[in-house]
């Protein structure tokens, strides 16, 4: 935002600074994408454009399997985390203990990923042993292996990781919502569920969908928790990291990184553009509503 008395050059310098920072941050990503389309790979003097590396990646059974596994995990995380985030945000709006609730909800963000992952690993192992012991004591075989490392444990780890983000994203959108509208709907005869579906949800939909997209991206980007809670060759990012650590960067690795980056940037870009357009539209409405009401 410019004011009438600011220097033209100062304004340009601010933009130059901003673009430099963004450029510096994104340059390695674009470079990786650039390399991923070179038939001769990294370090070659000659650049020959090709989609071959992508074909190799998409033809690799293990890679495609890990991609599928990640998609299933992401969908399961969305299906559980987004409703939980929505419920938490609604609870937050009602509770009088807002600071306590925010602290509790955001607490998982302050624990490093590998520490959280290993803590959960130990916890699940003990939990598993406890249930097995109880099962043996009461003769209930079905109580064994509930928390064997697998899809469920990875899912729980991902939920703990993504819930704070989903909560915050939904809460931001929800902060614009006026609870009087729910009361107005109830006064018109709507049940609590009808009021939520027909009046509240349409107004917070953008936040809920943003949270869903964000959770998908986080699921694709996450490596340490799933590696500890499921295994190093199950999710796409774990396969990529394992491959880089074991055999170094190949054209295939660049293509995998390219896929991840393109998908993530497209999703984030789409969310940002949609959010900006929506924010602008809401601001315009708010400005119109805030104009002094004069006699007609």
């Amino acid at each position: 935002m410019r004011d009438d008395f600011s220097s033209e050059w100062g304004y340009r310098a601010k933009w130059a600074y901003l673009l430099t920072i963004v450029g510096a941050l994104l340059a390695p990503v674009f470079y990786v994408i650039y390399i991923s389309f070179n038939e001769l790979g990294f370090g070659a003097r000659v650049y020959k454009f090709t989609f071959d590396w992508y074909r190799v990646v998409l033809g690799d059974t293990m890679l495609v399997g890990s991609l599928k596994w990640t998609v299933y995990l992401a969908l399961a995380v969305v299906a559980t985390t987004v409703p939980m985030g929505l419920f938490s945000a609604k609870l937050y709006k009602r509770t009088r203990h807002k600071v306590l609730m925010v602290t509790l909800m955001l607490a998982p963000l302050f624990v490093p990923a590998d520490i959280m992952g290993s803590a959960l690993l130990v916890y699940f192992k003990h939990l598993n042993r406890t249930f097995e012991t109880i099962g043996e004591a009461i003769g209930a075989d079905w109580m064994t292996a509930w928390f064997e490392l697998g899809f469920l444990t990875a899912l729980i780890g991902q939920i703990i990781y993504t819930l704070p983000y989903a909560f915050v994203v939904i809460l931001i959108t929800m902060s614009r919502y006026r609870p009087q509208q729910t009361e107005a709907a109830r006064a018109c005869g709507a049940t609590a569920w009808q009021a939520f579906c027909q009046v509240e949800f349409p107004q917070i939909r953008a936040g809920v969908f943003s949270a869903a997209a964000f959770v998908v991206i986080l699921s694709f980007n996450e490596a340490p928790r799933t590696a500890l809670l499921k295994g190093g060759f199950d999710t796409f990012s774990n396969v990529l990291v394992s491959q880089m650590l074991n055999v170094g960067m190949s054209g295939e690795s660049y293509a995998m990184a390219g896929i991840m980056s393109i998908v993530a940037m497209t999703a984030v870009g789409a969310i940002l553009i949609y959010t900006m357009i929506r924010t602008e539209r809401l601001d315009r409405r708010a400005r119109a509503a805030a104009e002094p009401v004069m006699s007609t």
Partner: protein
Amino acid sequence: MNAPSTSPTIAVEAVDLSKNYGSVAALRSVSFSIESGKYFVLLGPSGGGKTTLLRLIGGFIRPSGGRVLLHGHDVSDLPANLRPTSMVFQSYALFPHMSVVGNVAYGLKLRKLPKDEIASKVEGMLDLVGLAGYGMRMPHELSGGQQQRVQLARSLVLERDILLLDEPLASLDAKLRKDMCLELKHIQEKVGITFIHVTHNQEEAMAIADRIAIIANGRLVEEGSARDVYERPVKRFTAEFVGENNLIDGRVVADAGGRLKVDTGFAAIAVDKRGSAAAVGETVSISVRSERIHLLDPGAAAKDDIQVIPADYVEAVYLGLTTSHLVRLANGSEIIVRRLSNTESDAKFVSGQTVSISWRTENAQLHID
């Protein structure tokens, strides 16, 4: 819509209604009843419990004690959507993602009425509130007054027996508020249902109310017709809150049938008892409206029905139609005398001059609490 009833029936009854938020009592044992088809106003200072009372009637909050009866049925445990009430909120209550038609038709769609019927009812209601032709507009394209009309239409179209209005005019400018006030009254007369209107604005309350209940500190202070509440307030609080009243404290020194003599320390004032339980020796207050007091030359004599007391003139404040004259009594308390502005009489007295103030005995009101 229900036709206005010929014999009065009770639409709303509050029985010992209380609401606590933790240790804070928002409403304390309030009881009253409202006749069907009346325009009832809950008037009082902010934070006094008016909106809490309205929300209890509407089913938006559950009472901590007592009961709400609508048309004789106990609805205390029913949520808002199951009560025969609808509500107009102060602001922000239109659904921003729906057009005017969408907003007004919302409740009818919930009832699954045929589309044609919904369209015709919505059209008729928009016509009633003066918004014909605005159906396709979105709420943000309307002025504040128009938005409140849409809220009104959305509530009235449901054809419920009781309409609750929570400070519906508070966000409008003075001129629009006055216009909407009259319009609300006319609409209420036309549809004949019970309106319960919350406001802290006395002028608004006086303009529209059949009956007014004064609510303060979580209690029902007093209830009566607009004229009674203004002219004959029973409680000292009502006298202080409604209009511009002058209060003089004193002790009853004599009781001569229907009239008491009150010693204020600087004058003895006669005041009609009007059924008050005040007895000799009791501390009381006397209120006299500023427009009922006359400013006289010093030494004017009291008569049987005219009370006269000496005062020092302080200043005049010109307010356009009226001028406020401030005088000080011998005990230091100040009295406001409001008269129609007149260049000659406004300049008659000067600051520091001794004057007399007088009022007809019947215009004073006695308060014991």
